[in-house]
């Protein structure tokens, strides 16, 4: 058996373990849908009226703001996967099972890969639910099949990047609480400091610089364009290359964190 085959097989085994555990603990899946769903409701019904005023011809409870908002909520859903992943990985650390894996003849990246792939699948399921809720609320995308497929492809890549960033955070955090706080930087702060919920033009200049060039904005804008036909421009290039770069950096960081010598 080649070592490539073995590392695929080990990663698949780890992925399967993640599913077994997710089914035991359905609250995690539930909450990874509930949180973005609540944000959707909050932004659309509670804040939507005043935010929509900032959009041209915005009306209360209108489709226009929902069309703007929903792609952002989808990106938020993907970003929140960081929290679940970091917690799952940290659980393996605090439960010592990583100590066992490290002394077994299994491929070194298998555990992390299993967690990362589990996150992608879990995130895509959550996103389908969020889109469903959005449609019920009045979201009106004009995307065809190709655009939908492209959107899901981008989201899969993006959530892979998120997961690879979250895995090492879960590995280095000493407690689940620590893993949670670290992952919230990715899961919460970055989506809010992006174009996900409001237009960057309404923000102060110094913030706009950060917001416009951080990868979450590029992903959101690309997604928005694919689903609702707004201008994408160069954003798709930044979205894809940004995700790839983040995934690779996260992967390297994760390899390091997995093999790292324990410390106190």
């Amino acid at each position: 058996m080649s070592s490539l085959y073995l590392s695929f097989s080990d990663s698949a085994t780890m992925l399967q373990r993640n599913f077994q555990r997710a089914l035991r603990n359905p609250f995690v899946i539930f909450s990874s849908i509930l949180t973005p769903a609540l944000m959707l409701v909050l932004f659309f019904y509670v804040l939507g009226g005043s935010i929509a005023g900032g959009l041209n011809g915005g009306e209360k409870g209108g489709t226009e703001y929902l069309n703007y908002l929903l792609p952002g909520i989808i990106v938020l859903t993907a970003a929140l996967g960081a929290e679940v992943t970091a917690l799952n990985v940290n659980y393996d650390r605090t439960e010592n099972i990583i100590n066992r894996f490290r002394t077994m003849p299994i491929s070194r990246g298998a555990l992390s890969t299993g967690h990362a792939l589990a996150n992608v699948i879990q995130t895509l399921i959550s996103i389908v639910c969020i889109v469903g809720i959005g449609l019920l609320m009045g979201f009106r995308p004009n995307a065809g099949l190709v655009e939908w497929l492209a959107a899901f492809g981008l989201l899969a890549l993006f959530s892979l990047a998120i997961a690879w960033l979250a895995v090492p955070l879960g590995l280095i955090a000493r407690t689940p609480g620590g893993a949670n706080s670290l992952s919230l930087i990715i899961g919460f702060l970055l989506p809010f400091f992006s174009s996900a919920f409001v237009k960057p033009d309404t923000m102060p200049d110094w913030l706009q610089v950060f917001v416009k060039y951080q990868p979450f904005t590029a992903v959101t804008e690309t997604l928005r364009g694919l689903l609702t036909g707004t201008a994408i421009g160069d954003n798709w290039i930044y979205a894809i290359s940004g995700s790839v770069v983040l995934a690779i950096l996260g992967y390297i960081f994760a390899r390091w964190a997995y093999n790292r010598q324990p410390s106190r």
Partner: protein
Amino acid sequence: MATNQTAIAVRNLRKSYGSQLVLDGIDLDVPEGSVYALLGPNGSGKTTTVQILSTYLAMDGGEVRIAGHDLVKEPAAVRAAIGVTGQFSAVDSLLTGEENLRLMTKLYHLGPQEGRRKTAELLERFDLVDAAKKLAATYSGGMKRRLDLAMSLVGTPRIIFLDEPTTGLDPRSRKTMWEIIRELLGEGVTIFLTTQYLDEADELADKIGVLDQGKLVAEGTVTELKRRIPGGHVRLQFADSGLLSSAALTFQGSIRDEEALTLTVPSDGSVRSLRTLLDRLDNEAIAVENLTVQMPNLDDVFFALTGTSKNLKGGE
């Protein structure tokens, strides 16, 4: 299978955490098919040793061969030869006992049929059949420990590391664990275990290394270790106080107990000294009801040895 091969060979093993020297030049050899017990108090470096020998932790210096493989150059080959049960149980508590074992069989690439067979065999052997479908989170300490060990055996390792396998277990679970360890030994497996319990080392080990502050302060078989310190004696019991008195006259320096009708005679416990003692009793025609040889227990040995090393330091 070749016998008298060295399963674990360690030379001048050193490890520091920051400025703290944790292992200060350990040397040891464990022949294939034997049990080596590393005995030491909390913080003496037992876990660190196991973690290094099992490829978990990198050493700072020294040379280690496990199953003939160099630990640093061939960690993968070492991992394939060993099974490790760490100090703290390493099971997935959100999986059932059976699922935990199946996970291991998949990671060892046993194939579905062999995997199921192995899982069933281990559940049976470790008395976990009834609990097979329950989440490991609901297991008692003893059950978790058994599952932990069962998981370490999935890859049929030739060498098993057990870090404090019975710490925190109730006496019954402890006995069960001992039986399991002896069974493994019967299969020719080499066992390297650590313990804080002297009776455990006494019970299981072919050879004991006494670890104190990162140094092996003594090494040997149980008997050898006991020989190294004074305090052994033979207790003779007599039918009446007349016999007791004659015996007390024969053995100078002995202690008599009128009530129990016993006489305690200092002895190193060797066969030769016992023979001399019995010969003298025969010569004097003193009949003995009962004779027990009381060797210093490992507790005495341990405190004598580590006490010595501490005194040496204090005297510098």
